[in-house]
């Protein structure tokens, strides 16, 4: 009971803006419910309600944010109890929200970028007869993501976690009249399910050892060393599996490319604000656990490093504009994972990169949507080229995103990515060298494939098909793109200037760490080397795809083994197919056979036996009264004979 009183006290203390934070989740959720229940009646105004709900959530979040700013850094964390969820014996789980520096950062990103994407979708989906349903799902997506980041326990987080999975499934398969789109949605759902198993295992282990699932309760006991390292490592690895599923990290990344089946604003939402960032959030939020377990932290680092190279390599070979962007997301989330695994200092940069990435990636995706809008839903970059002259606004906004993701100073990607690379070089032994060099190499490859994308779309010779007449998108689409472009230009610098890492310190607990350790290489050396690699990558892309002399064949040319492998996502699908799908199908077939032959056979056999015996016995039931009487008499005589035989 004491715990509840304390939380109520905390809620009473919270300023008005913060205590209204439940509205942030409730408004989009209510809007989604209204849009889905109202049906066709809401077609006329559904999109307006959707945009308004998202914008209202942003307003409440901003209010809470400013209310938080007015307090001392140590007092900016609030626990907002909502209701008793599960009560049983001495166990009491309260559903509540945790509003602190980390969650508010996420909430602001999700609601702001989400609102822009909503506005963009009004125009982008204007010809779709199901636009209202689309907005309902978008709102559901946003609400689920907000619940995920705001929950005060792993269980509340899990509700949002599942909600995000559901909404992404609905949105990826929004055009489910096409079979491959429906399959893509299912694939995303199944890959996420694998991650969810990790989440469930983590929660079960936590509950078994700590008897609580709230963040405060778990972290308190982790710091008090009540659990062995093995237990913490198990929790850390299970959480990492969960994060891999949601954030499309190796080895669960295969769904992300196929998820491009959804309408482009969905891709923007999945990649920038909701969904894939959830894994990074989980790892950063669980930072206190990872501090205490070296093994799990190393696993996070390795997964991040593999994925960031994996995504970058795949991105180099993709001709589908959206799939190239998807690969880049995978790679950038890999950076965030890597940073999150580096410890408290890195975690702050992971979140910072997540915020800047949210802006430039959303901008890039919305730009891609604008290009598709102009080119009749064409996504093959080999059929673009020279669009920069016709679509000036899209060109400028995408250029901002492109420079930001490259990490060219002073664009926002530079401030966050460069910090991650620097941080990767901190440490002792082999780790800083491996992870630092991987991160640096990744930056170079990123520069190549993003420049390839940019140049193939906007520069070089026009390779359009005859029926394509590119034109600029309507203002409803270009204005959100422009706002995101502004964010891509300066958000990183602003976050760096206001000391974002310092702002997050109470959550990441970086203050307790030793003063920032020096990287194994001097910081200027790292920065310059990274920039040289980036410029080299961009220059190579210009020579091959951008310059007037560059010849880009309309059909993908025959390539060597490596390029072919990259075009096939490095055989991830094949590997899944051989190692998971087919053995799984074999097991299922085997089980079906056992079920059909053995279990059903036994059941049918018993039925058959009873039927045969019954059929045989029913012959006796002739229906002739006198035969019954005769058998009764015979029975009586038999009984009498037995009785006599026993007596005598």
């Amino acid at each position, binding site marked *: 009971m004491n715990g509840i009183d304390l939380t109520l006290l905390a809620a009473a203390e919270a300023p008005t803006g913060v205590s209204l934070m439940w509205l942030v989740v409730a408004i989009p959720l209510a809007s989604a419910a209204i849009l889905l229940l109202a049906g066709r009646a809401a077609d006329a105004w559904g999109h307006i309600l959707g945009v308004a709900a998202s914008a209202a959530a942003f307003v409440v979040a901003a209010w809470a944010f400013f209310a938080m700013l007015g307090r001392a850094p140590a007092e900016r964390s609030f626990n907002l109890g909502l209701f008793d969820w599960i009560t049983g014996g001495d166990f009491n789980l309260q559903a509540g929200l945790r509003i602190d520096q980390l969650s508010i950062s996420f909430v602001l990103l999700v609601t702001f970028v989400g609102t822009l994407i909503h506005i963009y979708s009004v125009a982008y989906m204007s010809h779709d007869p199901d636009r209202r349903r689309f907005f309902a799902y978008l709102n559901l997506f946003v609400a689920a993501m907000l619940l995920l980041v705001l929950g005060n326990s792993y269980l509340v987080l899990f509700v949002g976690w599942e909600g995000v999975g559901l909404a992404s499934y609905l949105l990826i398969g929004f055009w489910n009249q096409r079979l491959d789109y429906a399959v893509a949605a299912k694939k995303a759902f199944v890959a996420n399910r694998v991650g969810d198993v990790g989440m469930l295992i983590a929660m079960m282990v936590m509950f078994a050892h700590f008897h609580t699932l709230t963040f405060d309760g778990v972290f308190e006991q982790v710091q008090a060393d009540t659990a062995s390292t093995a237990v913490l490592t198990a929790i850390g690895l299970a959480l990492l599996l969960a994060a891999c599923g949601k954030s499309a990290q190796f080895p669960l990344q295969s769904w992300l490319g196929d998820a491009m089946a959804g309408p482009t604003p969905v891709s923007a939402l999945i990649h920038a604000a909701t969904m894939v960032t959830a894994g990074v959030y989980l790892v950063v939020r669980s930072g206190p656990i990872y501090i205490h377990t070296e093994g799990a932290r190393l696993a996070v680092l390795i997964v991040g490093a593999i994925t960031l190279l994996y995504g970058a390599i795949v991105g180099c070979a993709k001709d589908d504009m959206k799939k190239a962007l998807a690969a880049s997301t995978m790679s950038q989330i890999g950076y965030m994972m890597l940073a999150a695994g580096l410890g408290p200092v890195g975690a702050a940069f992971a979140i910072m990169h997540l915020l800047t990435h949210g802006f430039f990636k959303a901008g890039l995706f919305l730009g891609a949507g604008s290009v598709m809008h102009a080119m009749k839903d064409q996504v093959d970059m080999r059929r673009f080229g020279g669009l920069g002259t016709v679509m000036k606004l899209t060109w400028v906004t995408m250029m901002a995103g492109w420079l930001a993701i490259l990490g060219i100073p002073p664009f926002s990607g530079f401030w966050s990515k460069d910090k991650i690379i620097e941080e990767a070089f901190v440490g002792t032994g082999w780790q800083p060298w491996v992870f630092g060099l991987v991160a640096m190499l990744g930056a170079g490859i990123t520069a190549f494939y993003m420049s390839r994308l940019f140049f193939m779309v906007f520069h070089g010779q026009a390779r359009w098909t005859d029926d394509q007449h590119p034109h600029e998108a309507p203002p409803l689409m270009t204005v959100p793109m422009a706002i995101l472009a502004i964010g891509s230009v300066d958000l990183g610098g602003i976050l760096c200037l206001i000391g974002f890492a310092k702002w997050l310190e109470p959550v990441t607990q970086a203050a307790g760490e030793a003063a920032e350790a020096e990287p194994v290489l001097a910081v200027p050396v790292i920065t310059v080397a990274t920039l040289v690699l980036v410029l080299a990558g961009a220059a190579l892309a210009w020579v091959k795809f951008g310059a007037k002399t560059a010849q880009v064949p309309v059909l993908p040319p025959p390539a060597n083994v490596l390029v072919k492998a990259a075009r096939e996502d490095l055989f991830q699908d094949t590997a899944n197919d051989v190692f998971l799908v087919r053995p799984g199908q074999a097991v299922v077939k085997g089980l079906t056979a056992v079920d059909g032959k053995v279990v059903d056979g036994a059941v049918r056999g018993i039925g058959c036996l009873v039927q045969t015996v019954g059929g045989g016995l029913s012959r006796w*039931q002739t229906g002739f*009264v*006198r035969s*019954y*009487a*005769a058998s009764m008499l015979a029975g009586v005589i038999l009984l009498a004979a037995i009785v006599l035989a026993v007596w005598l």
Partner: protein
Amino acid sequence: MTVTAYLILASVLFTIGATTVLVRRNAIVMFMGVELMLNAANLAFLAFSRMYGTLDGQLAAFFVMVVAAAEVVVGLAIIVSLFRTRRTVSVDDESLMRH
């Protein structure tokens, strides 16, 4: 007269009744066979009652009579309704109990 004579008479009566039930087709005659069997049992009861000089057997005979009377009411009602619907009281015409 010893009790044996009564028992022989009772068993003869019982056999006649049982044979009647098994052999005759007419439901009413079968019914009469059943009554004959019941009365054979009554006779045995009374004979034993005399032999032991107690009233238990006579009591049982009264019970049997009451039950037989009740049974006759129900049985005759069935036979009458059977006759009304089927215009016959032969039990073998169709295997009634099967349906």
